[in-house]
């Protein structure tokens, strides 16, 4: 199995009273081992929803999701939790550190749920924090750290369990451009060195250019799926132009009902 994740006809429908919101509307996507995929798309196009489903935080309404060869779409909550702790890592836009725990404790946390003994947890958490350049900040609380430092703690936390698939939802969205570049560089380095598959949501074409492949969503569908310019692909099209009837796209988006209005 060379694909870490495969999505087929994946749908996520939210019931809003009598209205149905098709947040994901038949997603087709495959991500190969070690690949770095950037997901772009307008606000409300379903990027976060897709990432939540990929991250087993949310269940799809229908469709197939194969993760590392497992039919994740048919799993119960208990199995999904097991998948999250053994195979997945997360980096969030708002860092999502436990704000009353130290850097070290935050990085230890995923290993707690893996049942790793404390001594080993601390050893590995230290090493991970050293890798992200925070060896001097082990006992700091998140509030005592800058935004960039907090996100680096989150990176250490995400990588410390050596996940199969790392999911990042706008990881630099809350950072200024310089810190953003530093964090991004660290993130891609860790991904490359660990040969970890990564799916990252971003609005920024310059950031998407770091990826191997660019996927663009529109109204819950994949409307663009090409190698990034750095990997010999074409220029990334402007998001605004994607999905409009004038633009030749793999899927005719015009057949979909407009959801933003709902």
């Amino acid at each position, binding site marked *: 199995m060379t694909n870490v994740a495969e999505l087929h006809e994946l749908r996520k429908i939210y019931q809003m009273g009598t209205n149905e919101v098709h947040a994901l509307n038949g997603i087709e996507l495959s991500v190969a081992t070690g690949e770095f995929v950037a997901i772009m798309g307008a606000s409300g196009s379903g990027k976060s929803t897709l990432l939540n489903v990929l*991250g087993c*935080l*949310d269940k799809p309404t229908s469709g197939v999701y194969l993760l590392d060869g497992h039919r994740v779409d048919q799993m119960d909550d208990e199995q999904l*939790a097991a998948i999250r*702790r053994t195979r997945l890592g997360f980096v969030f836009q708002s860092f999502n550190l436990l704000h009353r725990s130290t850097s070290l404790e935050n990085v230890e*946390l995923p290993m*707690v*749920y*893996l049942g790793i003994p*404390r001594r080993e947890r601390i050893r590995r958490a230290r090493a991970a924090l050293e890798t992200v350049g925070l060896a001097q900040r082990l006992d700091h609380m998140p509030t005592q750290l800058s935004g960039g430092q907090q996100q680096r703690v989150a990176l250490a936390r995400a990588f410390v369990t050596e996940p199969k698939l790392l999911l990042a939802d706008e990881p630099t969205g809350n950072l200024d451009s310089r810190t953003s570049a530093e964090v991004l560089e660290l993130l891609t380095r860790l991904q490359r060195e660990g040969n970890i598959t990564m799916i990252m949501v971003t609005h920024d074409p310059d950031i998407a250019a770091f990826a191997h492949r660019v996927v663009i969503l529109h109204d819950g569908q994949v409307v663009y799926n090409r190698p990034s310019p750095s990997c010999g692909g074409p220029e990334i099209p402007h998001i605004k132009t994607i999905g409009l009837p004038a633009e030749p796209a793999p899927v005719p988006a015009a057949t979909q009902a407009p959801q933003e209005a709902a």
Partner: protein
Amino acid sequence: MEWAIWLESIRIAMREMRRHPTRSSLTMLGVIFGVAALIAVVSISQGASQQIQGQIANLGSNMILILPESSSQGGLRSGAGTSNNLTAQDGEAIERECSAVTAAATATRIITTVVSEMANWSTEVVAVTPTYLDVRSWPVENGRAIERKDVDSGAKVCVLGQTAAEKLFGRMDPVGEQIRIKGTPFTIIGLLSIKGQSPTSVDLDDTIIVPLTTGIRYLCGPDRPKAIVVTAAGEKAIAPAMGQITSLLRQRHQIHEGDIDDFTVKSLEEAARTAEDTTNVMTTLLVSVAAISLLVGGIGIMNIMLVTVMERTREIGIRMALGASRQMILSQFMIEAVTLAGVGGILGVAVGFAGSHILSYISGWPAIFSPALLILPLVFAITIGVVFGLLPARRASRLSPVESLRHE
């Protein structure tokens, strides 16, 4: 679930408690008070009940007491001195004719001043027939008891209780010494063993025993009311003995069918049972109050845990994203609730232990602690934690990861 997760949950629980010291201690207060009250109530009432039972048993086992009925009804009865209607002959008849009775003794008592070579002492002097000390199960420690020959001959001899002996002779062995009771010299032939206190806190050892005949002749005269004490042939014989005594005495006193007795027959077991019932009612009442307080403590824990779950929704989402299953979240919050209840319980045991001693000191009742009394309330407290922690913990475990992560 893995050991590491349990340890971690306990660590988190402890940390949460340290983080909110005021909140935690206020929450625990109900449990502390409940457990402490439970321990204090049970230990003191056990002590009181044991003391009363012990004192009653101490008066004599399987003992029946017959007292003259002093209030006669409007002079309907003939005969002089209605309060002097029990005689030594009645006692002998009871012992002879009632099959359920093993021994009966007749006694009368006066309070008077007694003089030794060393001291004066005002005490109780009991004039008795020879079986009296057997009925009271009261052996002599030194010398000998009053015997039949002393009663028959009206010998001027006496047996001292420990308190009376000490007051009259200090530490000296009184046996063989002389005392004067109402001017009459008596030779001390025996010293009784220690009896202790009666249920009404009377010092039973402050007494002097003399032969009934001698007492009547020199101390109180023949008209003094007398009581008869009886030993039944066993616990089961008490009720039949009381029946036999009543009909025998009615016959001897020529009481007609339908007229009321001129005496009262009481068993000490009855008194013991009444005392026991009274303490039981009190204990049940107080234990209920303590239990309700524990329950209220549990509701307090539930309330705080619900608030905690609300406040920490985001944290729960993060934990779930990092791989915590619903079961693990449930355990974490259960452990937090149980830790609150458990720590409250331990503090409650300490407070209850100390409080019982203080109460015991004030009331004079002993506080009795069994291991169960210290462990059971703790078990109750922890059970309360489990029961009232369940709802908040379930609520936490059922949160949706996505929504929790979005929670502010």
